[in-house]
């Protein structure tokens, strides 16, 4: 890529270059810099100059170095072979980089995102002569044992005649598999690879209403603060409050078809952890390895800052591509704050006027644009697919009033606030039941009614109400001690405390507890509410609270999340039976 010189370096200030003698550079054009061929992107053009962002460490770049244009916006390669791969922020496969440069990442390397030598089993689903249109599926490829890759007509060809399509067989992604005749009579050859500029959303036919929850297997989320498929959520929290663990858990257990996990400016070992663990974990729904549906993007905190800014877009573009094939994709970005800080750093080096806390004035626009790429869509092909975004936010000092948290809150409809106090007392996930909210409750109620006994909405309200009451009662206790409260009120505290340990807490490291099916969640909540009803009745009859909380069945309830496996849910029914019976028994003694 040294054909077209678009200019020469004038100034190097870290990852931001000023390039002079600009001839015909394009905005957002991908460029290569100097003899080392470092990757960069044009972000500003003015007065014969360009500002270029470098996606690799800028050491050694020198005034006078040539800048070569690629004639193309910074794009990703979309083709079979993405799944199961780990990429850097600009879609270079890290395994390949390791083969080339060993344990430490060298600069100036370039690799295809997918293996161009690999043969795929290709099965056409349309015949030559068909009129095809943008987004239409023309063939399928078994990408992994779990994901069927659907080869679609690239969005730029609105309508065309498929003049040729190769028969079923093995092909590489570079081989021509079809030929289109465009309306103007031109022939267009098609391979299995598409390129798409990362900063431009892929087109869809229309947005649909959100109706299904993204079932995560985390009780506090599914039962209390559900996320809808196609929805957006922010997880803000100080360090160590559980952002990454929550995202990992969702990536592992949620019912999306495809996961795109972006480690954006976070720890190297966390990506290693995912790489090591996911292949060994088995999806409870399909019985297949979790890596078979996962794409990873790693721009760890010590990797170049500008690639961090790009990594978010690289990820969402791949997510949209699978959505276009009719899949439900969940994308996790850990952490969007690092992305915003990358924006800030680059903006600072470009000497732009800062707005709040040094962030550029366009921060809210960028955040909005990112979250707007989520949605439940009617694809161009007529199929439905969704992209759900789960974004971690890392507020400085854990203070949610800072700009990134505040602006993010404006553009997401679900909020899982992590609480430092809960985390330090090892209440995990430390999602606060007081600060968090979900605007998807109404959207997903019908789904819950169709998929469980219809008690979800009502029972959720009841327990939330108790939790609110608890706050007021706790305030009284803090002033005068628990003895001042009557047993009827102390029992509310008791039930809430049980609900927290038995239901809200969920240990991500426990084989049984880490994933909780919707059925189990419904039963667990029901038995806890039954405890409240029955216990309250008994207390009203004069039974002292201590007698009730010491019951064997209550102890069993406290541990049911750990002891009752997914396929033995009748054990919860039995606990409930024993509980009701033993409360009735004590009640009987006091009645007379």
């Amino acid at each position, binding site marked *: 890529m040294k054909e077209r010189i678009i200019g020469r370096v004038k100034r190097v200030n*870290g990852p931001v270059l000023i390039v002079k003698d600009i001839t015909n550079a394009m905005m957002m054009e991908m460029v290569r810099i100097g003899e080392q061929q470092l990757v960069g992107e044009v972000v500003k053009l003015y007065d014969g100059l360009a500002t270029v962002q470098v996606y690799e460490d800028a050491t050694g770049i020198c005034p*006078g170095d040539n800048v070569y244009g690629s004639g193309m916006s910074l794009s990703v390669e979309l083709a079979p072979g993405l799944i199961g791969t780990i990429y850097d922020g600009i879609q270079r496969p890290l395994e390949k980089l390791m083969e080339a440069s060993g*344990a430490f990442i060298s600069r100036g390397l370039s690799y295809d995102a997918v293996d161009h030598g690999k043969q795929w089993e290709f099965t056409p689903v349309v015949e030559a002569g068909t009129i095809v249109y943008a987004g239409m599926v023309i063939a399928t490829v078994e990408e992994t044992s779990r994901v069927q890759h659907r080869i679609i007509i690239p969005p730029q060809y609105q309508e065309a005649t498929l003049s040729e399509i190769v028969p079923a067989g093995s092909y590489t992604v570079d081989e021509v598999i079809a030929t289109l005749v465009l309306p103007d009579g031109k022939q267009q050859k098609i391979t299995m690879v598409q390129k798409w500029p990362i900063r431009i959303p892929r087109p869809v036919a229309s947005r649909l209403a959100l109706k299904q929850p993204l079932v995560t297997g985390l009780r506090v989320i599914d039962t209390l603060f559900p996320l809808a498929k196609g929805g957006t959520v922010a997880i803000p929290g100080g360090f160590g409050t559980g952002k990454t663990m929550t995202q990992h858990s969702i990536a592992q257990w949620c019912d999306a078809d495809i996961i795109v996990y972006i480690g954006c*400016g976070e720890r190297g070992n966390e990506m*290693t952890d995912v*790489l090591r663990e996911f292949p060994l974990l088995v999806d409870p729904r399909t019985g297949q390895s979790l890596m078979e549906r996962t794409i990873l993007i790693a721009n760890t905190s010590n990797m170049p800052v500008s690639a961090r800014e790009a990594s978010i877009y690289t990820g969402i573009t791949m997510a949209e591509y699978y959505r276009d094939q009719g899949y439900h994709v969940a994308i996790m970005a850990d952490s969007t704050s690092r992305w915003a800080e990358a924006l800030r750093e680059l903006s600072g080096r470009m000497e732009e006027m800062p707005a709040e806390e040094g962030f550029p004035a366009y921060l809210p626009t960028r955040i909005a644009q990112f979250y707007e790429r989520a949605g439940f869509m009617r694809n161009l092909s007529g199929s439905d697919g969704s992209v759900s975004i789960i974004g971690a936010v890392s507020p400085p*000092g854990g203070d949610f009033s800072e700009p990134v948290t505040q602006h993010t809150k404006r553009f997401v409809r679900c909020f899982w606030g992590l609480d430092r106090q809960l985390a330090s*007392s090892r209440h995990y996930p430390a999602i606060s039941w007081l600060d968090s909210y979900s605007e998807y409750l109404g959207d997903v109620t019908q789904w819950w009614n169709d998929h469980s006994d219809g008690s979800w909405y009502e029972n959720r309200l009841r327990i939330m109400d108790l939790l609110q009451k608890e706050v007021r009662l706790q305030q009284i206790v803090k002033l005068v*001690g628990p003895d001042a409260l009557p047993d009827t009120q102390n029992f509310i505290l008791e039930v809430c405390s049980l609900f927290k340990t038995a239901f809200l807490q969920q240990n991500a490291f426990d084989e049984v507890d880490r994933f909780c099916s919707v059925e189990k969640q419904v039963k667990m909540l029901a038995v806890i509410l039954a405890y409240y009803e029955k216990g309250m009745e008994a207390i009203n009859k004069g039974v002292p609270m201590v007698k009730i909380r010491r019951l064997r069945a209550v102890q069993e309830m406290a541990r049911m999340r750990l002891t009752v496996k997914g396929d033995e849910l009748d054990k919860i029914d039995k606990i409930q039976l024993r509980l009701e019976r033993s409360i009735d028994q004590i009640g009987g003694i006091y009645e007379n």
Partner: protein
Amino acid sequence: MKTNTESLMAQSDRRLLSGREYRGASRIDGPLVYMRNTHPVGFGELVEVVTPDGARRSGQVLDTSDEVVVVQVFEGTDSLTLPGTGMRFMGEPLTLPVSEQMLGRVMNGLGKSRDGSGTIHGFAERDVNGVPINPTAREYPRDFIQTGISVIDGMTTLIQGQKLPIFSGNGLDHNQLAAQIARQAKVRGSEGDFCIVFAAMGVKHDVARFFTNSFEESGVLDNVALFLSLADDPSIERTITPKTALTLAEHLAFDKGKQVLVIMTDMTNYCESLREIGTMRGEIPSRKGYPGYLYSNLAEIYERSGKITGKSGSITQLPILSMPNDDISHPVPDLTGYITEGQIVFERGMQARGIYPPINCLPSLSRLMKDGIGEGMTREDHPHLANQLFASYSHVKDVQNLASVIGEEELTTLDQQYLEFGNFFEKRFVNQGFDEDRSIEQTLDLGWDALGKLPSEELQRLSDEEIAEHYGR
């Protein structure tokens, strides 16, 4: 591929020109020197600065353009003059010649001898700024390091290859603790080739002496490389010291297969020096005047730890930082906590109550603990036991608050039991001697002794079997 002759010529010109000396700076501002009319100089290049009296200092290019090159001088700009300052641009990045012979030596922040025993010979040149480790090449750390300190081993277990900072405050016992860890740390069942790299940034001479003495007393001094940039050394030197130290650590761990413990103190001084440079350059600051890139900058230090697949060595980092005003939300501890794999948090109140080490385990955390403890590593009851101790101890804090309002006598019997548990936990489990080296079994048994103060129904994080086996024995 078409090559561009002009640019090739420029490249070879540059190679010829590198090493050529320019004289006369256009501006000197704090640690920064501005030089005009040079040949094109690469970003990040190593610079040799020649003082008016002919002495040599090291610097690095911070900003380069057609018109002017900005160089930061690591040994400070004292006594430089505009006309008398010379500069040679070396045409290569800042590297450090490293070797095992640096063990047992005392050096300055740039790796030059400061112990008077002659020049330091290095063989391998390594990039001081480091190169990111490919996440696919990392090996997830999981080997338990027994420090012999109960609250660490039991509650915030240190793992070989981890970066685990100590968040402390002025006047607290962090140096004692770091020295004790350095003395006692071992991976049980392996006779690893162990060594220490010590980096001091802006600390006082007696702190440096304390560590040297402590290493000497325990007979490990020959296995320690000390990089000292003390309180009266130029502040700018602190910005390179941890990087120099880690460059050696990487050589020892990944070329020589050693288990390296890197102690860095005090990271707050390092950050302050960065802030100084940022302000000097008129950069837009973020919180408390610290530069917006502080996070990435710290990450470039802290991420230089861990293990690499196929290599036997490891780098374990134990950075020490003082929290200004004991404020954990101050940018330095805050950003550190976002990067490191946990934190050990000191509490002034505990030290006042005579507890050593004064670690509050509730805000403390070891993120790598989960894979390094339990059956076959420490003991099978360890994960649940630690969980239970955390849960119960956090309830103690609530009870203490309540007791301070309504009085201890008014507490329920159960809450009084919690107070007793809390007392035992702090005074017997956490508290220990400077020289007391407890085995992990002793630590866990002490944990069970503490739980013995509570009725067994309260122990919901433990399984019935674990309670049957250990409770009340």
